[in-house]
């Protein structure tokens, strides 16, 4: 109820609900097509992987609905960062990876970005491929790689969730900064634009990434206590 109230009150000011997405008109057509095609290939592979996994464990279909809805809520929530004076939102795909694996994370992120682009006009249609690649693909891959590495050290679910959340968030914004730098590097070297974008992202995204890690770690702890079987690394 509290969370519902919080989301509702935040949504009363929709004009300020900005996202991290690259807007319409920033990417050159050739790069927009490149990111789109790359994302389509990865999404195709992720879809088959997820389909196989859901046919093996049909009870996980409910988890997929839950994870996608949660990723949607988190990625629509602009969180103000005090002192910096900007807002940003968590990515959320690490939670989907935690529950469904890599394929689930990618497809959940893809559905969320599609809904945001078509129904909420967040991010542009021409930049949809780039936004899918940074958030759904790179975010999920980073969360999954962190999980594979950390699982070996028998860490607590909280620490695994924390690392997955933080790293997937930061990797998403690192990719966005790279995509932006690539799009704008004509007369200016790519490195200098990348450096500038990263410096501008850092003050907002370091605390947001930590917050995302805490959310993912908290959920992992709650599930480990009551429903261990729902965590992908316990299956």
């Amino acid at each position, binding site marked *: 109820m509290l969370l519902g109230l919080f989301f509702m009150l935040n*949504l009363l000011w929709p004009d300020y609900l900005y996202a991290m997405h*690259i807007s319409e008109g920033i990417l050159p057509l050739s790069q927009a097509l490149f990111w789109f095609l790359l994302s389509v290939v990865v999404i195709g592979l992720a879809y088959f992987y997820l389909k196989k996994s859901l046919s093996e464990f049909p009870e996980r279909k*409910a988890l997929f609905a*839950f994870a996608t809805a949660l990723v949607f*809520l988190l990625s629509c929530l602009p969180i103000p960062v005090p002192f910096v004076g900007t807002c940003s939102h968590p990515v959320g795909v690490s939670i989907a990876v935690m529950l469904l694996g890599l394929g689930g994370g990618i497809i959940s992120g893809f559905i969320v970005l599609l809904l945001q682009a078509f129904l909420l*006009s967040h991010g542009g249609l021409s930049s949809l491929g780039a936004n899918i690649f940074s958030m759904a693909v790179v975010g999920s891959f980073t969360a999954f790689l962190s999980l594979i590495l950390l699982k070996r050290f028998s860490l607590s679910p909280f620490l695994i969730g924390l690392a997955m959340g933080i790293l997937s968030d930061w990797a998403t914004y690192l990719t966005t900064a790279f995509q932006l730098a690539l799009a704008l590097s004509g007369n*200016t070297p790519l490195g200098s634009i990348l450096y500038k974008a990263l410096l*501008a992202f850092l003050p907002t*995204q370091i605390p947001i990434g930590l917050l995302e890690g805490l959310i993912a770690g908290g959920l992992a702890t709650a599930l480990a206590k009551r429903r261990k079987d729902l965590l992908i690394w316990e299956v």
Partner: protein
Amino acid sequence: MALKRKLITLFLSFSLIFFTLSLGLSLATEEAKWQGLDEAVIGKIASEHGREPKESFLALEGDLELFMFSLLSGLSGIVVGYYLRKFLVEHTHASFSGK
């Protein structure tokens, strides 16, 4: 124990309401503050390099944006709440009653 929990819930509720209202007021009064990163960073850097961000082809106008945000967030909130209860509460009750 129950009283303590109620007090904590009450405190958290008021803190959240206060925080959200303060945020809303600051947003309403200060135009340039609390911009999202897409505007404050991506849009700004793109404009500096001669690529002005354009409005989305599917831009929502007027209260339609508020309607869509409220509807989709409300629906996803219901889905999250429903399944969270199903996974954590109902499953635990079923386990205890031996079902």
